[in-house]
């Protein structure tokens, strides 16, 4: 591999390693640095919360970690692979294999059953029908929705929808689960249930990154990173 030298520098056990990460948006003659120079390392089985005001750069950071966006400068290693030089295809593959997304608005496909929604990432992995079914079913069992597999999103409650989304994120056995305000559209008791689900997923050995602006959500994590104006303000164990 041509990046072998750089890869060797990277901490070999880290799931995510960011070095001097910068993301600059150019708007005509002006430009905005959403991220200035972020250094961050996330080890396997860590449970991390990223906090910050709106405009602090946490969404940008999350998009870059999720391989949806590329940094303007700096380096990003995901499982010791250099994301900054991946092409579109490789990024799509990374999103499919290494990342599991949980969105604030669930983002389930409305015309499909819960089971079919959970199967979507596996279609892009190229799994056959039978394997997809087995894995999607077991992911739904993990989130406690074995009895709702054939329901469409419109027939499910908000908490159940978010569980389906979590199952969808888990189904490919990703290296990290990335959750963007996962309880933002839920009432507090359902939100707590989802956070309990996250806690148990962490106990089962998953690596989690939760982006939130709520302290009590961040308190579930074992490490809190605070962002402000594109820089890391603090990084501490909770």
């Amino acid at each position, binding site marked *: 591999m041509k990046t072998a030298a750089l890869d060797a520098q990277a901490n070999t056990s880290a799931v995510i390693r960011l070095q001097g990460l910068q993301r600059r948006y150019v708007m005509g003659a002006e430009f905005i640095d959403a991220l200035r120079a972020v250094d961050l390392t996330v080890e396997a089985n860590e449970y991390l919360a990223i906090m910050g005001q709106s405009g602090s750069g946490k969404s940008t950071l999350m998009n870059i970690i999720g391989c949806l966006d590329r940094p303007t400068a700096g380096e990003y290693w995901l499982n010791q692979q250099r994301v900054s030089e991946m092409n579109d295809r490789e990024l799509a593959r990374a999103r*499919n294999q290494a990342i599991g*997304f949980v969105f604030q608005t669930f983002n389930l496909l409305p015309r499909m059953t819960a089971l079919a929604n959970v199967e979507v990432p596996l279609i892009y992995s190229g799994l056959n029908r039978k394997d997809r079914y087995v894995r999607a079913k077991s992911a739904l069992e993990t989130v406690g929705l074995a009895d709702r597999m054939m329901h469409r999103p419109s027939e499910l409650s908000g908490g159940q929808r978010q569980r389906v989304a979590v199952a969808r994120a888990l189904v490919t056995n990703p290296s990290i689960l990335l959750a963007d305000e996962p309880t933002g559209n839920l009432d507090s008791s359902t939100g707590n249930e989802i956070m309990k689900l996250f806690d148990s997923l962490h106990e089962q050995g998953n690596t989690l990154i939760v982006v939130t602006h709520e302290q009590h959500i961040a308190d579930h994590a074992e490490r809190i990173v605070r962002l402000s104006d594109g820089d890391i303000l603090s990084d501490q164990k909770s």
Partner: protein
Amino acid sequence: MLITETIRISLMSIRGNLFRALLTMLGIIIGVGAVITMVALGTGAQRAIDEQMAALGGDILSIQSSSWFSRGVARDQQTLTTDDAMALAVGSEHVSDVVPEISSRFQIKYGNKNFNLTTIGTTPNYPDVHGFTLAHGEFISPADNSARRRVVVLGSEIPGMLEVDAALLVGQKVQIRSITFEIIGVMEAKGGSGWRNPDDDIWIPLSTAQFRVTGNEFVQTISAKVSDASTVPMAMLEIERVLRREHGVLPGKDNDFAIMNRKQFAQSRQEATQVFTYLLAGIAGVSLVVGGIGIMNIMLVTVTERTREIGVRKALGATKGNILLQFLVESTILCLLGGLLGLALGAGASALLAKYAGWQTVVTSESAIMAFGFSAAVGMIFGIWPAKRAAGLDPIEALRHE
């Protein structure tokens, strides 16, 4: 594997919005239906001409007196005689048979029934040359002709007009221009040759027609059968030479007769029909293109509507290629479904036209395959732009889309 999934997803999204899918397909349905119907009409017309050509039998040249002009006014003249026919039979080696014909419409009476029918005075070799066979009785014999006998042979539709069984008519009497004739035969049906229906004609001996009925010795038409189709041009030159000599036409003067090649005429008609078919199919094809634009329009709307879905799919690992394929497959499926319905519409319309308008229509598998392939191509071509737009969406923007 992925392609079957892609097709499944497309079918699901089409089913999710079935009414709109139908409206979208309407353009293609009408386009394909129109192409199928037009080609069916054209093919039918072509087949009709083919049948007429087959009915024309061998290569028959038709020689007629030509009109001449006097002070700018066309006047008929009669120049052909029985002698000309004899001269052709003897003096032209490429012509195997010659039939002189006189035809007029006369009042025919049978019992209390009265018809105005084309009566042809001709020679015994007429059925051979024109491809007729007798159903009952006999045709005019050489003896009938030389004795100027009052005998008549009826076309196959005449018994029906007279409401008498054909077999019973032989030996009965009819009156032609108040002259009593004996029926000696009835023809087998031959079918139209495109100009006129020969099955309601009647035939009498040439000499009888000349000397007993019309009192006119000229013949209107001489049909010359050419033994070998490849020698038709030579036969025409030969006929011209013989007749100019017979008529004493001076060198440099125009012929006082005209030679027509019916088969050639039919062929040029066939070519004209073909051009017309292509023209009609082309016009119908334009509506297919318009239908394709309709598909593109709706696909663009669909891409906008499903921006969020595209973003989600990309976040879950779909590549640009996956998204491109999905939308391309969707528009192609729409067009193919439209093509299928259009095929049914076209076949139905063709059947209705054949039934109620009486036009001969033929839906060929070629035209079906062509229209179907064309609609698939329309789906792909007009699907490319929307699909590219979908594939090129930025996943972050797409996920934020409301």
